[in-house]
């Protein structure tokens, strides 16, 4: 068993269930019978090479796009059948960390974190202040409350976005490529925070990334996506022991394999000697 594996009491019901989902963009199939399950209180990682639809999967789960066929359920409710109001009610129970933070550029750090509170509650300003400072303290940026997003480094922006994502105390926290473009220190901080949020608050966490090392240190369950399907699933250790070529290439960082190094092209010699395109 993985050291990250939660105890039986933690491992609960399925929170997110995707069954036989099909989805395509511009005629290109993104998902071709996708099946995944994320369980309550666990950190579930969706991994895969660039362009395999990891971010699109998050958009399916959050109802930003709808699958052409198949089923996407969150807490047992079909996302595609939800009205706008039901979808907004669902999203109030979710927090999402975007790749670039997606902070509101015309507001400072404090106002960014306070934004969901002001939008959805009528709490007195003193309580809003307490909540915002508490969340900023949790991500180590209480002292940066009055900085603007332009004054933050990439790692700091990601942490502010995380504070904003947890300010409404969500049940599900979704991380879209949380490690992209970060230095090792910031990466370590984000890793620790993801684990901390999961353990301290019991939040179900969904992490989309292609950083194998980082994910292996925090994820309870992993799904490897390729060719519009899940090609392997299990704990990160199980994936690293897999003999499947797709898994071996991805986990080992091999430059050629089922995902070819070369984009499909005509014969090299013929191309060089031929007419210019």
């Amino acid at each position, binding site marked *: 068993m993985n050291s990250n594996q939660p105890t039986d009491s933690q491992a609960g019901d399925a929170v997110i269930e995707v069954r036989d989902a099909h989805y*395509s963009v*511009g*005629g290109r199939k993104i998902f071709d019978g996708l099946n995944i399950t994320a369980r309550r209180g666990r950190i579930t990682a969706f991994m895969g090479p660039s362009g395999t639809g990891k971010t699109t999967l998050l958009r399916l789960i*959050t109802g*930003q796009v709808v699958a052409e066929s198949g089923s996407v359920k969150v807490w047992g409710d079909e996302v595609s059948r939800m009205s706008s109001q039901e979808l*907004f*009610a669902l*999203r*109030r129970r*979710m927090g*999402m960390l*975007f*790749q*670039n933070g*997606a*902070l*509101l*550029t015309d507001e400072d750090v404090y106002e960014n974190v306070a*934004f*969901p509170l002001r*939008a*959805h509650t009528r709490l007195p300003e003193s309580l809003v202040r307490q909540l915002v400072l508490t969340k900023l303290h949790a991500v180590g940026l209480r002292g940066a409350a009055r900085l603007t997003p332009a004054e933050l480094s990439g790692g700091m922006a990601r942490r502010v976005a995380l504070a*904003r994502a947890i300010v*409404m105390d969500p049940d599900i926290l979704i991380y879209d490529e949380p490690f992209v473009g970060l230095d090792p220190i910031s990466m370590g901080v984000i890793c620790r925070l993801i684990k901390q949020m999961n353990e301290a608050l019991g939040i179900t966490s969904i992490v989309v990334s292609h950083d194998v090392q980082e994910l292996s240190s925090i994820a309870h369950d992993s799904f490897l996506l390729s060719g519009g399907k899940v090609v392997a699933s299990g704990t990160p250790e199980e994936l690293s022991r897999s003999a499947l070529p797709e898994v071996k290439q991805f986990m080992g960082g091999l430059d050629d394999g089922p995902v070819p190094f070369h984009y499909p092209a005509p014969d090299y010699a013929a191309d060089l000697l031929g007419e210019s395109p």
Partner: protein
Amino acid sequence: MSARSEGARARDSLPVVWIRRVGAMSLFFAQVMARLIPAFGKPGLIVRQIYNAGARSLVIVMLSGLFVGMVLGLLGFDTLQRFGSEDSLGVLAALGMLKVLGPVLTALLFAGRAGTSLTSEIGLMKSTEQLTAMQMMAVDPLRHVVAPRFLGGVIAMPLLAATFSVIGLFGAQLIGVQQMGVDVGAFWSQTQEAVDLRDVTEGIVKSLVFGVACSLIAVYEGYQSEPTPEGVGLATTRTVVTSSVMVLLLNYLLTAAFLVKN
């Protein structure tokens, strides 16, 4: 959207593209209108947008109004003195400013200054996923981002047009009275006698309509822009072109409507 429908859209003729665009804009307008009253729940957002669209355009509007008024004073004096009626310069300047030049030129300046700013701001918010982040926080971007900006533009536009007209009239007086020697008493008394409430109303109605058109086009183009640097740039260009054409077209229609009414 399927590849086939995208391809089919790419082959559509220009009239079809424009009809589709007008339809999409009408739907968008209806969606924004439905969110106007809820938007008043956060008056701070609207005040900020009135400042952005109005106060920040004030200098350029005042300067332009002054220069246009000065040209009107020069050309008006030159023309009127041929008929010995240079004392009517005030009437010419006031009616010209209130009924046409004020609303139209202010709207064109508004489209270039505030309209492009609105489009690029919303377009950049879209390309940096700020609008998606709002949706993920269960916040409606149409209500929180678009409606206050639209309202800010609609409220700011008549105020800017009034400022333009007043400064323009002052510019015409500056040239006509101070430089060309028109009698100051005749300038103002004839103006007071000739200009009535209907003329002022025409100017206000025009500037309001232009404010709605320019603000709607600006927020629509920003909201529908492709989330790429090129897409935002194209959307900004479309805002200026569409707003300018629309203002000139609406000006003709409104002028004709007021002439028939009066």
